[in-house]
């Protein structure tokens, strides 16, 4: 076999392995479209219309969580992996933590509370990256945490605008993946 042929096969093999894990970890791209959209809308509304933003978050957050679990469940119907189950349980426990924290302990009020929630989600994604062996997701999670800290500490007046832009980026990237995997 020629070197060039072997290189092409190797690239093909690596790409297939990587794409498969990415597709499953991101639920076919849908999770980025869902939360990118919610995050962009919610944060940008917070900048331009705080009253409407509060109503939006009240409806969109629980709906987003329910849809996320539905997407995970729907994928699990077609692809049954121990890793998928682990991911499902992980996010389930994290959601339980959010609920208990909100209802009984410390509701995430104000910028401090929001920043804390985002940090938690950021580290959750960093962990997801190690679980699914996708360094890009780990770095994205750590990057989100760094941005969260930076905006909260140094530019709090621009926090929601910054997060809104991150949401738009997530939405765009998720849309791109969705197009790639469904065309």
């Amino acid at each position: 076999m020629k070197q060039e042929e072997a290189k092409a096969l190797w690239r093909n093999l690596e790409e297939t392995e990587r794409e498969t894990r990415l597709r499953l970890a991101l639920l076919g791209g849908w999770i980025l479209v869902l939360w990118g959209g919610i995050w962009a809308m919610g944060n940008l509304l917070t900048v331009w219309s705080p009253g409407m933003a509060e109503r939006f978050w009240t409806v969109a957050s629980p709906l987003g969580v329910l849809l996320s679990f539905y997407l995970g469940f729907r994928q699990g119907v077609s692809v049954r992996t121990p890793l998928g189950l682990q991911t499902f349980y992980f996010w389930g426990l994290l959601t339980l933590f959010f609920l208990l924290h909100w209802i009984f302990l410390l509701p995430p009020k104000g910028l401090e509370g929001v920043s804390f929630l985002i940090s938690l989600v950021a580290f959750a994604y960093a962990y997801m990256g190690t679980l699914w062996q996708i360094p890009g997701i780990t770095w994205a999670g750590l990057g989100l945490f760094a941005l969260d800290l930076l905006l909260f500490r140094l530019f709090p007046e621009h926090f929601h605008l910054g997060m809104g832009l991150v949401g738009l980026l997530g939405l765009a990237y998720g849309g791109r993946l969705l197009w790639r995997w469904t065309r």
Partner: protein
Amino acid sequence: MALDPVIHQETRLRLMALLASLGEGAQVEFTWLKEALDLTEGNLSSHLAKLEEAGYVQVEKGYQGRRPRTWVRLTPQGRAAYQAHRQALLELLKGG
């Protein structure tokens, strides 16, 4: 280490790579596999038949409620064969 002639075909290599990346104990539904690999039903069935004949995959037909489903999983033999093929390819690249 020699390349496995059954796995070596491009589509079957992608199929094995996909199944191997799901981890041990994983099983995937035929339709999802078809969409993920962008293959026709006939094409995928033909490649699965060759891999099943070699003992590398197990194909099970069943039902989910009333819907018929076909499930595909990598056998331990298939996982070992894929890893060996992967290693052989890597050695070929290093040796070049």
